[in-house]
């Protein structure tokens, strides 16, 4: 198991724990990793009692060889992009732990939990006010965006 680069080693460990001790509401699409360990698709179920109850969303994780010292690129993909004031219609997420506040002690599981809690705290289904401009002008990779956090409490 200890073959490959340190980032691959850590990704395999994360993979194992997601499969062997799964967290309710977080599911790995194992087909997605069969081709490439550096790209994962994870399904998350919105929490009960939240505005999104009953909805399932897909997150795409991309890791580079500096992971976990460099943050992964995380976006919503698929048909349904949650309507939320920190989530753009192209799937980009404005969340500080995905850029400035990233630390190598975070993981796929903790990122998913943070995103779920962000969804749960929403009081209104709406897009960010600058959605139209941002989605027209942004780079494909959300990691290239210099995020101005809309709200530091999230």
């Amino acid at each position, binding site marked *: 198991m200890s073959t490959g680069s340190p980032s691959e*080693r850590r990704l395999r*460990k994360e993979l194992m724990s997601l499969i062997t001790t799964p967290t309710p509401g977080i599911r790995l699409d194992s087909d997605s990793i069969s081709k490439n360990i550096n790209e994962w698709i994870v399904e998350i179920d919105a929490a009960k009692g939240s505005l999104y109850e009953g909805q399932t969303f897909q997150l795409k994780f991309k890791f580079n060889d*500096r992971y*976990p010292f460099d943050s992964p690129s995380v976006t919503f993909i698929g048909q349904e992009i949650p309507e939320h004031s920190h989530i753009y219609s192209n799937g980009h997420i404005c969340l500080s732990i995905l850029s400035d506040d990233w*630390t190598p*002690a975070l993981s796929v599981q*903790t990122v998913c939990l943070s995103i779920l809690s962000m969804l749960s705290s929403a009081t209104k289904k709406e897009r960010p006010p600058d959605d139209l401009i941002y989605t027209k002008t942004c780079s494909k990779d959300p990691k290239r965006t210099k995020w101005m956090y809309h709200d530091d409490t999230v």
Partner: protein
Amino acid sequence: MDSEDEIGIDSGNSSDDEDYDFMQVDEIQRQSGNAQDPVEYPFEVLTTEEIVKHMLDCIAEVNNVVEIPATTTRILLNHFRWDKEKLMERYYDGDQEALFKAAHVINPYVKPKRESKTFRCSMMEDCDICFLKYQYTNMTGLQCGHRFCKSCWVEYLTTKIMEEGLCKSIACAAHGCDILVDDVTVMSLLTEPRVKTKYQQLITNSFVECNRLLRWCPSADCSYAVKVQYVDARPVTCKCGHVFCFECGEQWHDPVQCRLLRKWIKKCDDDSETSNWIAANTKECPKCNVTIEKDGGCNHMVCKNQHCKHDFCWVCLGSWEPHGSSWYNCNRYDEDEARAARDAQEKLRSSLARYLHYYNRYMNHMQSLKFEHKLYSSVKLKMEEMQQHNMSWIEVQFLKKAVDILCQCRQTLMCTYVFAYYLKKNNQSMIFEDNQKDLESATEKLSEYLERDITSENLADIKQKVQDKYRYCEKRRKVLLDHVHEGYDKDWWEYVE
């Protein structure tokens, strides 16, 4: 100073010259020391090594009074922007726990809660970064109790230092923990010399940037910092020769104050589109329309068209003739004429015209100042030539001095247009404009002489003429600055903003 030593060596030639030169040096020193600073403004220029030593001295000084680890002291001092008094005051003010929390350090008097860990020395621990198991001794962490394996720490710190350029604020690697990593821990964990050097640079840089009493020399490629005893808008001279305002870091800008200069620079940047077309370096001869390119600092233009040879002023495009006499009026924007513009559109146009009037003259002196650096090299050749004609090294220094003064005058004139732009018209502002006119005309005469006429004169006459001209410039400059300073003291100046 070098020149003083040189006098000692060179002063054997003739006793008359010797006395004269000594007098001159005294005079220069007296003037440069007193001209604009009634009270001395003490400052020191520090090398990188001296900055590091100064930082360690600051920490030691605090540690003499407050008995906490030096590493904690450094973080606390950084938190208080290296203001020792403020730190001491807050430290003895009462709530030390709140102080440590605000500075993101653990109170060193409180024993770590995770003491029990030491009993588990023989046990294996999980590293939450690489997810591998390690022996206790291979794991490390700060007082917050979050522990990671040493190689993950090194990788984490290296990423922060090399890629993000952070140093004063590297926090613990645990998510949500804001306890800062101290410098001793960083240095003991790092092994790569490249990363260690970068970290030390970052620490020094943040020390200078946080410290109110220190400022990096803003000159490109200069690594000195200037240290003062109190912050003020005063000129400081770096060892590299650059003279800048300690308060704002801009090139020394007397007589205009930092606030208005900043406002002006911002305005110029915002208005770059309008300024582009006027800043262009070519104009047409007002008489024959031949395109003329400015290639020197002097504003007295002579059309190169052999059939024209028109003399005119580059700035106002007026005939040069009146500029040499007392009714030289190129510097003064005619407010009366501007007031005649009645309707709104005219008003808008006149406010742009007013701005362009000052901007044009400001930019022009800035351009000229750049050209004067070319003058240093041509003057150097002249100085060598003179030394071959039996003049001593010290005797020919007047030429370099003349260019120094020319540059000072251009720098001052440049700033007078910023001052004038914001100045409301009153009796004193009229006197100021007269002083500005006199300095400008004296400066142009010196510039023209150095750039053009000097080659055609015989060597003996040159010294007298140059000295007369630069002394007059110095005098006009002092009169102008003294008058503006007096106005600051007596509240004469009102501004249009």
